[in-house]
């Protein structure tokens, strides 16, 4: 079936009273942005839902994109036919015939918004249903639990038929809830945390700490790859790569071994907060999960958190590792996350890290460092990379 339109429904958005058009407009922008590679596509707002005219673009590929856009509750491919009973009947029949898998039961649901249309909705249901039954085998009507719902929407501009409801990923359109800096290590948890943050409409910018030569170029590439996967849900993502080698070296030289991780994390927090202020973000998102490792005990969180003013969002804080891994697989980051390159958190792991650090002790040990200067220096030397989903990493010109 060659579909020509798509109806997009959004759940939660419709509930927001005064902000609604703001939310809707953001969703329309995000959809247009995601579909910009298909010329000719039009996105229109009609009351309570969106209407996409494909104008020749292939439905399956467009559907794959829509399934990545936050704020979409569900969508249906639609076939438009003229206000003519025979055309409606024929199209309805071929939609059923081409359904794969072929249904055992079906039901027709007509909505006649265009009242001048001569047949009333109940009558339409019977006319279409009878036509389908006459021309197919092994198919029954079930008005309570049909396997296929054939929706017929009669409007003044035409009749719209659909027989499939595909669920979207829900959430809120990215861009309606402000911006947060996501600390992106390259592990399994932080991309999931970023995805969950985006799901609530937050724009994220990634912050990655790079400790060359202690961490490799591959580790950095891995983070770029992860940001690229996340950018499928966001359009594009700004990634800040912060050089941490000097700071880590100084911590190793001047602070007690058991506190190296705690102090390093505090430095990262400070740098991220600076970057947030510079880029207009109002929160920091991390992939911390309570009690997963030594730096994620309640005491550690307190000690690390105490150096920043901005709220720290921890979307996976209460999730089990297995749950996080499942979600990572679902959003497509798992395979990349498990590539075996060391990140800045796994090098220089002390033999016995402190599990119950205190902010006071940490502050005391940090006196050996010139904290503010080091933070400022790292911020100044931060490299910025824009990552986009379809961006072709064509570094070399062999295939041009």
């Amino acid at each position, binding site marked *: 079936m060659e579909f020509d339109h798509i109806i997009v429904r959004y759940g939660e958005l419709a509930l927001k009273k005064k902000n609604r058009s703001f939310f809707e407009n953001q969703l329309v922008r995000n959809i247009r942005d995601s579909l910009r590679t298909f010329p000719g596509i039009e996105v229109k707002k009609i009351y309570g839902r969106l209407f996409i005219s494909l104008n020749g673009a292939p439905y399956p590929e467009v559907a794959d994109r829509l399934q990545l856009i936050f704020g979409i509750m569900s969508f249906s491919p639609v076939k438009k036919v003229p206000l003519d009973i025979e055309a409606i009947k024929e199209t309805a029949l071929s939609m059923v015939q081409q359904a*794969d898998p072929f249904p055992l039961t079906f039901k027709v649901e007509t909505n006649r918004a265009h009242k001048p249309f001569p047949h009333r909705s109940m009558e339409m249901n019977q006319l279409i249903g009878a036509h389908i039954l006459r021309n197919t085998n092994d198919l029954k009507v079930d008005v309570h639990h049909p396997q296929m719902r054939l929706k017929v929407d009669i409007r003044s501009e035409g009749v719209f038929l659909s027989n499939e409801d595909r669920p979207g990923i829900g959430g809120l359109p990215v861009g309606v809830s402000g911006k947060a800096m996501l600390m992106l290590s390259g592990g399994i948890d932080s991309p999931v945390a970023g995805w969950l943050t985006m799901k609530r409409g937050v724009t994220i910018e990634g912050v990655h700490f790079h400790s060359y030569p202690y961490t*490799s*170029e*591959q580790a950095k590439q891995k983070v770029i790859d992860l940001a690229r996967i996340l950018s499928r849900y966001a359009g594009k993502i700004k990634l800040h790569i912060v050089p941490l080698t000097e700071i880590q070296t100084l911590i190793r030289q001047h602070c007690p071994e058991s506190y190296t991780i705690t102090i390093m994390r505090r430095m990262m927090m400070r740098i991220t907060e600076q970057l947030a202020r510079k880029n207009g973000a109002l929160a920091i998102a991390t992939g911390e999960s309570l009690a997963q490792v030594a730096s994620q005990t309640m005491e550690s969180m307190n000690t690390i958190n105490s150096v920043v003013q901005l709220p720290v969002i921890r979307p996976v804080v209460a999730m089990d590792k297995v749950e996080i891994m499942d979600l990572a697989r679902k959003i497509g980051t798992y*395979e990349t996350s498990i590539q075996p390159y060391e990140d800045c958190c796994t090098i220089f792991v002390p033999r016995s890290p402190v599990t119950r650090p205190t902010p006071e002790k940490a502050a005391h040990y940090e006196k050996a460092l010139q904290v503010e200067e080091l933070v400022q220096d790292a911020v100044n030397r931060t490299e910025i990379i824009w990552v986009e989903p379809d961006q*072709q*990493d*064509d*570094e*070399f010109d*062999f*295939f041009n």
Partner: protein
Amino acid sequence: MIYFDNSATTRPYPEVLEAMDRAATQFFANPSSLHSQGEKARKLLEQSRQVAARIFSCKPGEIVFTSGATESNNLAIKGVALQYQNRGKHVITTSVEHASVYESCRQLEQLGFEVTYLPADREGRVSVEDVKKAIRNDTILVSVMYVNNELGTIQPIEEIGRLLAGHRKILFHVDAVQGFGKLPLEVKKWNIDLFSLSGHKFHGPRGSGLLYVRAGISLFPMLVGGGQENGFRSGTENLPAIVGFVKALKMNHEMQTQQYERLKKLHNSFIRRLSSMKDVQINSPVAEGSAPHIINFSVTGLKAEVIIHSLEEKDIYVSTRSACSSRADRPSRALLACGLDEMTAKSALRVSFHPDQDEWEIEQFFDVFPQVIQHLKQVMRV
């Protein structure tokens, strides 16, 4: 020189050779090495994979670079069979496959698998109905070539794919060697799980090929070691060959429609002239369902080899059948399977074009060919 043996091997494009030269000299490090030279090579390797994936609208992880279609076919067939043998031990293929598919299946029989070799009609085509009838509860793999290498016959891949979409447990492998670059290849739409390509069939380098392995499919590897190519094919990646292969892949993909048109013209012209000759029997499908670059025909009473050598003296190069088996003095297994009698099969000749060839080459061929035939007939008294 008139070279009409492009189904055996094509001449590499200059752009391909240039890319290979550059890759071999500037990216010589091992892609698995950790240092920046290795990293540079790895990036080029992954970029090659991405370019290939874009061509087939698939994921980079679904592309396995191999040494050619023989390896791809061996890996696909034996790799699937050995990996999934606890689901069943029955494989379906056709009687007109390339030797690398056929012999892989023969090996599976030695290992206790059962193989159904589907019959082909007079034009070398298998029927979807026969595939359907051959399916059993323990069938795990169906392997059918896209375009027959001897006759040019296009197999009903789309229809078979549609049939197999209803059988989740059965994997579908397509040997697409002779189809790519000439005909469309719709991997997702046709429900293809695995397909094989060979670089030197479309102006890429020899020793290069590809096996597409749909995400989620596991294979029992034929080559184990360092775990390269997702563990499916160990061995240090042949980067220059891969780069040349992908370069040729991209060039052919971009030119496919034009190539089809040009080849079709050559094909029609050749068929038209051939049809007017007496004592010539065209074995390829003439009207519909044939790839545009292969024509197979027999000259009654004359052994193919004799004609080949006679044409060679005039600097014209054609072949008997699949180059991979043509040195054996037996008529082609595939042609016999299509119901050709032994004499017709023994006298079968194959001409195959490439898109940059000109009409005048065909004209020149037909200036020479009838004379050669006439002369041979006199000498051999047929």
